[in-house]
């Protein structure tokens, strides 16, 4: 499998300066460092954003004390969590208990490697990027499962069993939505998917395929909410039922890894949503020349983040509005409703693509 070339000026400069194997190593180290920085900054910013948005949904102020607008609050929280003892309850399975917190964050880290932030701002552009994304995001599920199993607590066990059932089910409709996009774009590379949406706003896949695109977007949002373990589908955590679900027994740095992964996952998932449906890093164009020219002044990476944050706001809005589903309702929602609808939608989209019944 050969990856497409990503020709960012900085990467090209390093390639010009160093011999090939050294340049690859230097570029790789640079990419890993940048992604690690992005993960940290995003997680901290998103924790702050979630607390602020949640507070204003609830007629509160949210963090205000640490730093301007409480911006440094997550850093203070992080320091607190790092200083805490990393508890090991009696009777836990050592390997499982300490391995579990590392897996979800690794999964979201790996997803970000193929995320196209801009035309040439991407770590690697795999031809089968979508397949890769689906594969590595499974690590998160694994982390939750073995964390709940290993921590010798019935609440954790219940939470992880719930999440096992939930995440494997919702993976199906999520993958079907992705399949639809791959079918429409004619490529499984994330960058190719974005580039297939060039043109006006109406060329984005959410609008381009009449009905099917919008429906796929709705299905993507619902099933990715379930994949993210966020309310209203946060059954594996279910604070009011299972106290903390799979991370009941975790404290300190182990807990913060789960916590961090939740937010980085949200970022990765919103990034995928923007890439698949909202034209990724492409600036929106409305077919009005002066306006389009003005909008295109901003670099693609800014547009990418604007779209991502719009989707993140949507996730937060869901979470702070809706009550939680019950586990059997959740599963019948997937198997009796979302999955058939996804299949029908896939069929509809295939028909539309075959007969070219798309918006001009």
């Amino acid at each position: 499998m050969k990856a497409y070339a990503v020709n960012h000026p900085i990467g090209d400069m390093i390639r010009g300066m160093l011999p090939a194997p050294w340049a690859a190593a230097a570029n790789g180290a640079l990419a890993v460092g940048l992604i690690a920085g992005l993960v940290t900054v995003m997680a901290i910013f998103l924790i702050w954003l979630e607390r602020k948005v949640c507070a204003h949904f609830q007629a509160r102020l949210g963090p205000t004390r640490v730093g301007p607008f409480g911006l440094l609050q997550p850093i203070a929280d992080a320091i607190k969590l790092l200083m805490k003892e990393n508890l090991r309850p009696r009777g836990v399975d050592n390997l499982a208990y300490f391995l579990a917190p590392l897996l979800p964050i690794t999964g979201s880290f790996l997803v970000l490697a193929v995320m196209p932030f801009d035309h040439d701002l991407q770590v690697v552009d795999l031809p089968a990027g979508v397949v890769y994304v689906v594969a590595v995001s499974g690590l998160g599920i694994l982390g939750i499962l073995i964390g709940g199993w290993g921590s010798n607590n019935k609440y954790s066990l219940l939470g992880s069993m719930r999440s096992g059932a939930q995440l494997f089910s919702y993976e199906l409709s999520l993958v079907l939505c992705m399949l639809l996009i791959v079918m429409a774009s004619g490529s499984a590379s994330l960058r190719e998917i974005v580039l297939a949406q060039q043109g006006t706003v109406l060329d984005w896949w959410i609008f381009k395929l009449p009905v099917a695109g919008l429906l796929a977007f709705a299905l993507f949002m619902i099933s990715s909410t379930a994949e993210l373990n966020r309310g209203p589908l946060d059954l594996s955590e279910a604070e009011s039922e299972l106290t903390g679900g799979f991370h009941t027994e975790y404290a300190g740095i182990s807990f913060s890894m789960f916590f961090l992964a939740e937010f980085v996952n949200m970022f990765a998932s919103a990034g995928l949503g923007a890439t698949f449906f909202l034209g990724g890093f492409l600036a929106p164009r409305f077919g009005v020349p002066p306006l389009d020219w003005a909008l295109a002044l901003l670099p693609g990476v800014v547009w990418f983040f604007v779209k991502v944050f719009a989707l993140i706001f949507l996730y937060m809005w869901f979470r702070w509005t809706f009550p939680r589903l019950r586990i059997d309702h959740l599963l019948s929602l997937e198997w009796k409703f979302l999955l058939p609808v996804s299949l029908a939608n896939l069929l509809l989209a295939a028909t539309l693509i075959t007969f070219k019944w798309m918006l001009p």
Partner: protein
Amino acid sequence: MPAPSQQSDVRGEGYALPPGFSLRETRADGSQEYFLNMGPQHPSTHGVLKLVVRLDGETVVEVVPHLGFIHRAIEKMGENETFVQYIHLTDRMDYLSSHINNLCVCMAIEKAMGIGVPERGEYIRVVVSELQRIQSHLLWWGAFGMDLGAVSAFLYGFKEREKITALFEELCGARLTMNFFRPGGSNADVPENFPARVKEILEDLKFSLDEFDVLVSKNPIIRERTLGVGALPRERAINYGCSGPVGRASGIDFDVRKHDPYSVYDRFQFDVPLGKHGDCYDRYMVRMQEMRESIRILEQAMASFPGGQYRSKEKPAYKVPAGSYYANVETARGLYATYMVSDNSFKPYRIKSRSPNLSNLSAINEMSQGGKIADLVAILSTLDLIIPDIDR
């Protein structure tokens, strides 16, 4: 695999079975029932109630409530306090109906000593009791939302409740433990701006209740989670002694305010909302409608709020003649009653409180059998238990 009770030394605390509790044998397919301690520290028991739940997977087989974590022997303490001093202890039973609890003790003393209450005093009692009922239901609504996962509802409920709590603070100086009513009336007259404040609160409340309906009552997830969950048939509810919204949701048309009117409740027009099936949804709807009925009562009371004395002449000491006396009221959770026995002294010989929560809790095993853990949480939430009132 040995029975869980034998391996407690290996696998840590919490694996020994609680006393009086047994699990069935391992079945042929190797599956086994297990038990889960919900509480005394659990987010949805709203206090220190411990539920030992026998589970089959996620299905509830049996629920055994363990009480007594917050037992303070209030009734025994009452025997060492004068009748008036006992009033402030009732604040600490059902702390969301403290005004109404105070009222019940006062009514028993009034019955015993033949003390009358001036008309303004009676109106103050009704207005304050109904405000207390709305305040309690608002808190319940918020907690219900939070238990079912709609955390914003919790804050909205508290936001509205805060207005009434602030009014109580102006009225009697306290927000939770009121100690406001006295035999013959209340300890103080209402502040001058009280009627205006009540009207303002009622206007805000009508708007908020409509908003609450949109956010929670009409939400299909809430409907799916509550409809048909935890059904308690009428006969069973009567046998368990359920009262208040829990009993009325099961179709028991019993409200002390209507069927044994105390104070001046017989002067007001209001309806008693009734459910049909006694499920969580009915309990929810009964409480939502009760808030609207309370608004109706308050509007009528404020329209005809009389002047004059707020308290009949105060006695230097309350020496209750020998005998036994009983008074009952309708708190936000049901029938609250005080039964006092006096031996012609300043202190009660025995004082007994009938709390609605203990009877309502006793139905939980029957209601939650066969449901999921999430259903148990919904049932606990719609029972609207106040744990200090169960233990006393």
